[in-house]
């Protein structure tokens, strides 16, 4: 189960004053607001609820479609071209999963019935707080580039299938999936982020930019479900320098 949780990015840069030719970055700080797109990801979970006095096996493959998110960032220059900042990103998505279950027979031990179907309405959200050290590289008039990286704190909320409801009738040798029951799991864990940003300054303090950021953390939501938060994402938005 790997997840690309994308979260945010922010990049930052402050635009060098138009016409500046020097590699020195003189702004006091930066801010950015981005929209981004995080690629699809998936993970699986296997739970064993008790049904008819026997352990069932419910195997769910969760598909998290490519999803847009937003992030905002701000930081201050602390030494020459080096800045320290914080980026906060968020995304949420209502997705689904494919369920493959082995459900116990109501009358007999060890005679499981295979049940397959889809689960829907399973919400996934991620919040990433990226602490970043950023190096600004003013490369040409109006253009700036930056590299950044640092630790990230992820918080993931995920609806997990915990059991299935069946459509069945005597003699109960077969059954079909009537629905699923789910529970929301929330966990946080530290990870990392690295990336780069390119900005074009339309005004001395206002520009637009695009970034690529890779964030990642492996988070165990339950004993059986581990997701990968973050991932590679690309985004773009407003760039401010001050």
């Amino acid at each position, binding site marked *: 189960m790997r997840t690309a949780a994308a979260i945010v990015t922010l990049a930052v840069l402050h635009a060098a004053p138009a016409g500046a030719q020097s590699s020195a970055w003189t702004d006091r700080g930066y801010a950015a607001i981005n929209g981004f797109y995080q690629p699809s990801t998936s993970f699986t979970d296997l739970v064993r609820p008790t049904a*008819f*006095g*026997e352990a069932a096996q419910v195997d769910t493959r969760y598909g998290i479609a490519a999803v847009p998110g937003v992030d905002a960032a701000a930081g201050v220059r602390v030494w020459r071209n080096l800045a320290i900042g914080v980026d906060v990103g968020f995304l949420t998505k209502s997705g689904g999963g494919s369920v493959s279950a082995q459900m116990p027979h*109501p*009358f007999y*031990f060890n005679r499981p019935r295979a049940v397959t179907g889809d689960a829907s309405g399973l919400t996934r959200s991620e919040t990433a707080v990226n602490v970043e050290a950023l190096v600004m590289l003013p490369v040409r008039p109006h253009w700036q580039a930056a590299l950044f990286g640092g630790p990230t704190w992820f918080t993931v909320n995920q609806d997990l299938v915990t059991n299935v409801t069946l459509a069945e009738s*005597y003699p109960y040798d077969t059954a079909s999936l009537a629905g699923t029951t789910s529970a929301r799991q929330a966990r946080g864990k530290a990870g990392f982020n690295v990336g780069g940003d390119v900005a074009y300054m339309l005004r001395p303090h206002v520009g637009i930019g695009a970034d690529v950021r890779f964030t990642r953390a492996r988070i165990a939501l339950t004993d059986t479900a581990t997701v990968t938060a973050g991932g590679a994402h690309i985004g773009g938005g407003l760039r401010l320098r001050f």
Partner: protein
Amino acid sequence: MSDTLRSFRCMAIAACAALVPAASSAQGRPTALAATRADVSALRAADDLVEGLARSRALRIRASQSDPLVGGRRHERFDQFHRGVRIVGGDVARQSGSDGTVSVFGMIHSGLDIDVDPALPAERGREAIASAVSGRWFGGDAPELVVLPLPDGYHLAYGGQAIAGLEILTVYVDANSGRLLQQYSDFQREIGTGKGTYGDDKKVSARAASGTFLADDPMRPAAITTYDMKGSLARTTAILNRVSGVTMSDIGADTDNVWNDPTVVDAHVYAGWYYDYLFKRFGRRGLDGNNLRMAILTHPVRLEDIASAPPDVVGLYYVNAFFCGTCGPDGRGAVTFGEGAPRNFFPGVEVKPFSASFDVVAHELTHGVTATSARLNGFPYSEAGALNEAFSDIFGASAGFFQLPAGTAPVTASYLLGRDLTVPSGLLARSMSNPASTRDPDFYAQRNIGGDPHFNGVIVTHAFYLAIEGGTNRTSGLSVAGVGAANRDQIEKAFFRALTSLLPSNSTFALTRQATIQSASDLYGAGSPAERAITQAWDAVGVQPRTAPSAALLPNPAPPSTASCAGGVLNPHWVLGITVSAGASSLQVTQWTFDLFDRAGALQDHLVLDAPTFAQFFGQCGPGSSRLLAQSDACTAICTDLNGDTSGAALVTITATDEAGRSVTFSTPRTVLAPR
């Protein structure tokens, strides 16, 4: 001769009914119908006969239903009436398809000239039924006026039920004199011993009610309720006899749904498994095909009371299980499982509760299927009783193979019916695969007519086994190419369909042979492996269409018949079970001879005996008459010695006159009396 005669000690082979020759007998004869498309003209004649009798209301339809196993087929069951009075055992099962009649099996009585106006009013008949068995009336408002065929002729009789002691009896009395003609128990029982279960995990389908869980299955289409009598024999008999109704407190219960009473668990779960077997294998919905509820009674007595219990209570409610078709909460049948016996109540043996063995549970419940279909009841032709038990054994074992893995350990399937009832195992079992290993017969001539139907039924169950597994019959030496265990469903379906759709109530082994072959042909085609296997199997166990009369002599018959002879007989001695069987024609026995040979083969005694003596001796499974109706049997058990010789042989020869006035003579095989 008279000295030798005095040396005979007759004893009952079976505890079948007490019979009294009656003066109201009337002429008539039964005719077995067994017609299929193998003989189109015979089938047409049988069909015309049925149609004609139906038009004249001599046959009246009892049930009509479509065939769950063969599409487009329909089965009708008719009862025969004589001047508006039902003839017991006169019934016909007709199978038809879209292209006409397929088969007709049954027994039709013709030539009756019996007055159907009873001298006794119904109320007196009811009293006579009760007093005849020293019991009390139990059969509803009024007894049924019937024509009763017995080996010595036809009788106008009142029939009904009475409670006598612990049992419910079906009783027939003469409708003119009130004398007892016939009685038999409604309890179809098994003998066994046991206690406890084998610790296997089972799922209990229970109903939640008022903070507890009841052994009342809410998930299957038929109500399956297991009652816990909590060791109260009085309560048990009150419910069986319908003296009082059941309450919720009678139902087995558990507070947390983790059941800790293995007797209730086994009974309840196995009843559900049996329902599943019927449905999945045969498409049958419950015992009657219409989801008849199942009532299961457990703990009828307390195990700790066994030492002080009377023998009849021990025999009925401890080491026994039985089905009663008229018992239970609504009078529609109940199964009672005995409590078993602690270790060493019988030396060296522990008897488990009778619900501990799935094949036994399925056996008892199959009696419920039979009671609502072919109605085989062992009366008035004893082979029907053996068939009743045989079909219960067959589907008891088959249900086991359907639900459990085959094996020799407890809670596995095997052909050793009742294996799990005892520890050590198998002490009360009947072997379908090797009948000799449990001292049961594997050949028709070894039957003990009028004897224990469980004993005689093994001949049929062995045929069923051979049709599946194949092999060689030890007595006949004939081999059978079975269909194989992987195809056991074919043989099961052929037998089940014969039981539930084709066979009449007074079926014989011979008729069952024809019906099962017909069934296999219907299901799998003429010449199919299943039809061939069944035909070979019946050949192997010596069951052929009964046309000519025959006689059989079985030394040392079934265990119940091998009790010591009374005084006056030298040692060593032998108990000889002798059966005389009429074929297609009724017989009037005129003479019989009894020859004894010494160990060198020289004739030692040659006794020439007359008809009255035949009636005197052959009264053990009939009223005692020198007249035998077609398709019926007469039997006796004779204890004899060889004047001190330790081995020898015996031969019985019968001379009789048939319906055409011809003299016929037939003999038993010359049978070796093994060294003693």
